């Protein structure tokens, strides 16, 4: 066992002892964590049908700040939660960088361990989110040594920097100049303008300290070209193919076929006004990201350009959203079926006969900024639950109507779930799931009354409400029957682990908390090491041992 792991175990034991000695403390921590889990799973920071963006952001920020105040170690570990959204990773990174560690206070994670988590988050986040975060840190003047190091390492250490340079030039420039400061940025620009052999010794030293130390030696020339390009020095004879392509595309559109679609489209609108957007799409269709391939289908059809899209590369919610926009096809249906089967294999609850009640009232349409996402998520989860049933599944839809053109269920009408629940109960399920945002008005509380009466009739099967929407006014998910059913957040059919962590916390916080933290820490380390292996980064011998070490016992819903 490595020294680091021994220290970790000691720290975890202390944590466990502290929780065991105080039931109140354990409960308080668990409650904070539960609230956080709701937010982490499904908050997007955007408006919902019922709450404005400001309300959602305030609720989200509050949940993060409260957990950070409990223990920054526990908070950092939340990055490793299965199903934690990119947005929550972004928030964790920002909160941890923004709040300095207090020397006199002890935390669950040491400073080095916390740095490991921060670095891991940076590797996980899509570059768009990472850059957005760095720019917002610049605006908030978060400029401590840890933040600067993280920015420089994340940007300059990436093998994707040449691509990013052509795509996110302005944001990269802002992030780097924030990390270096205005003066150092000017100095570096001046040094990089000079040919390599004309640089003075002290200039080479500065370049090494500020830029080159973040990348392997054989990448030095490429890195210098990229940084120079970002700050406006477009060399005609650049060695980096993408940077050369960018330069050449200004005179010949065809030379830009290596560039991302949006970059070449930008160059076309400036330098080739006589050429069409469809030509750009044709030229760059091989460079499209998965997200662009699905998002540009309509445009591709209009432009008569064939953009291949593999439905299996998208999650089920995205496929449902695509079907809402473009109509359901056999191909999408088949992919959805396969996705549901895969997700069902990971689902922690085993049941023979599953009842599913889908709320399709108007509010499940969501806000315009993420239109139809709640119902799309619910339908994806509904498919998965049907596949998870060992014998059979029954589905009841409350409200909504089927659109004749797309053949999709459109959310519509008031929220009346009670009769649907009774119809399901009559079919004799052994587990019941209600997919709903938790807003009921025909009338409010009716579902709870029906559940109460059903319990009196001796129907004791577990009932879970799975909610795809954060309710800002409830600071989490909103329950249809708070004292009678478990209410869990869901963001995707294939990521159901997180909601069941919450269920576990509700039942036995003192046991669940240390187990959860240990699991998350081990999981994070393994993920990080596995990633190093994938990207061919050298592993230390201790790291190899840890990667090959047996997994800690997995948590089950029953535990």
């Amino acid at each position: 066992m490595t020294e680091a792991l021994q220290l970790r175990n000691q720290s975890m034991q202390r944590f466990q002892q502290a929780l065991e000695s105080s039931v109140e403390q354990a409960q308080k921590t668990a409650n904070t964590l539960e609230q956080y889990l709701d937010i982490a799973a499904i908050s997007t920071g955007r408006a919902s049908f019922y709450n404005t963006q400001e309300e959602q952001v305030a609720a989200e920020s509050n949940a993060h700040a409260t957990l950070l105040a409990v223990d920054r170690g526990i908070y950092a570990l939340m990055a490793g939660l299965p199903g934690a959204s990119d947005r929550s990773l972004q928030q964790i990174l920002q909160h941890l960088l923004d709040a300095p560690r207090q020397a006199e206070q002890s935390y669950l994670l040491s400073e080095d361990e916390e740095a490991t988590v921060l670095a891991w988050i940076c590797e996980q986040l899509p570059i768009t989110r990472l850059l957005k975060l760095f720019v917002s840190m610049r605006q908030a003047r978060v400029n401590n040594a840890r933040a600067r190091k993280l920015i420089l390492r994340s940007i300059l250490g990436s093998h994707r920097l040449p691509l990013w340079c052509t795509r996110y030039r302005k944001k990269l420039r802002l992030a780097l100049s924030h990390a270096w400061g205005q003066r150092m940025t000017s100095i570096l620009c001046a040094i990089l303008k000079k040919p390599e052999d004309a640089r003075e010794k002290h200039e080479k030293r500065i370049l090494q300290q500020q830029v080159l130390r973040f990348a392997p030696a054989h990448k030095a020339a490429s890195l210098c070209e990229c940084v120079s390009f970002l700050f406006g020095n477009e060399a005609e004879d650049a060695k980096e193919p993408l940077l050369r392509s960018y330069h050449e595309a200004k005179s010949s559109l065809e030379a830009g076929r290596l560039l991302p679609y949006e970059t070449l489209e930008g160059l076309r609108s400036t330098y080739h006004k006589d050429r069409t957007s469809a030509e750009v799409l044709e030229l760059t269709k091989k460079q499209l990201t998965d997200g662009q391939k699905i998002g540009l289908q309509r445009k591709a059809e209009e432009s008569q350009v064939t953009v291949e899209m593999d439905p299996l590369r998208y999650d089920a919610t995205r496929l449902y959203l695509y079907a809402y926009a473009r109509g359901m096809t056999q191909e999408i249906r088949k992919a959805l079926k396969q996705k549901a089967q895969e997700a069902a294999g990971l689902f922690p609850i085993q049941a023979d006969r599953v009842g599913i009640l889908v709320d399709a009232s108007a509010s499940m349409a969501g806000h315009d900024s993420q239109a139809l996402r709640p119902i799309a998520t619910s339908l994806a989860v509904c498919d998965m639950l049907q596949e998870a049933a060992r014998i059979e599944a029954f589905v009841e839809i409350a409200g909504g109507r089927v659109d004749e053109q797309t053949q999709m269920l459109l959310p519509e009408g008031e929220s009346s779930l009670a009769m649907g629940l009774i119809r399901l109960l009559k079919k004799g399920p052994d587990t019941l799931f209600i997919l709903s945002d938790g807003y009921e008005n025909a009338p409010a509380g009716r579902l709870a009354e029906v559940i109460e009466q059903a319990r009196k009739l001796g129907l004791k099967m577990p009932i879970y409400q799975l909610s795809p929407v954060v309710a800002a006014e409830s600071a989490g998910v909103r329950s249809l029957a708070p004292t009678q059913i478990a209410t869990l957040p869901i963001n995707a059919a294939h990521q159901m682990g997180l909601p069941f962590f919450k269920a576990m916390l509700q039942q036995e916080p003192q046991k669940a908390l240390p187990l959860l933290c240990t699991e998350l820490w081990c999981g994070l380390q393994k993920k990080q090491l596995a990633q190093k292996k994938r990207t061919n980064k050298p592993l230390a011998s201790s790291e190899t041992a840890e990667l090959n070490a047996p997994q800690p016992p997995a948590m089950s819903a029953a535990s």
Partner: protein
Amino acid sequence: MLKKLFGKNAKTTDEQAQSSKASEPTLAALLHGLKPGRMQSVGVMQVIPLLGEIDDDRFAAPDKARVWTEGYGNLNFENKGEQTVLVPCHTGYIVEEAAQDHAMAHAAVIPPKKKEGFKTAMCIQQTQGGYISSGEHKMMILPYALRESAHEKRQVETFNKLWSDISAWNKRFGLSEMGNLVLFTKHFQKQLDEFVAEFECLPKQQGAIILIGGEVVGIERAPSSDFFKSVWSALIRECYGSEAIAYSQSMDKDAIIPGTRVPLRQEGIRSLDDLAQALEEAEAKEEEIARAEVRRLLDLPIQTTQESTTQGLDIETLQSETFLGQLIRDKERVCYASLFLSKQARRRQAWKDAPSFSI
């Protein structure tokens, strides 16, 4: 005076008297072309949606107009669109910028591509200086309890005419006695958000009958479902939501569920079929109680007085034994109506509801 207040088409008091309708319509006539939908019920508040098939898309809600103030008590609208903007009665603007928030004292019509200013508007944020800059601001509608005072003072050109009423309203909730409505909206933000969260605006919904504590307190009608959707949040949140808060605070905790909310019966449920039947019974009973409450009002005679005409649209003020409010009419067609229960009617009702004497 009226001409000055409402524009060149306004009529004088004498003209108003002459134009009072000879045949007094009833409340039912105002709801012509609409049918009730399924009631929504949360806590003390219930909403009966009014659904209509005929959308009059000549009209847009004020969220399509630019709004600003020019001096205190002077609210201006600019309609850059092709549709005529109808400004609902007591539309207000609580803005983020450091500016005195304002509200209208009456309904208004803004023709396409036109600007209109209203010097009868009211400041609703005492102690805050500054003018609202021109822009598309989020609208609200004055809290229900302030609407009658605003209605009575609709022709008065004094910017601070509502401050004493707002001050009394704030005092009722233990807030500072100031004519600053923001004190209320901030203090009860969470509750107000919850109200708007609970109720859903339905497709084809062009209006609503609102009940609080089992009593009809307001009737709203819009020209189209799009229009109604635009004003829905303002109606549910600030206007009726505020009244639901006030009502809940005035009642015992145990007594806040109104008589129109029928719980499931507890007895005689021995099977799921019994449970389904109990549910159907409760829902049918609930609908019937609410509809009876509305039916009781439908034949109430109402009196309307024409106040101004813009582009062939008449703005009329409505009075009945029970309701006050305004409507906008295009000849026989009612395009917009907003009615609220008068204080006098509520006092009468309170007297009726008081227990009879016994010894």
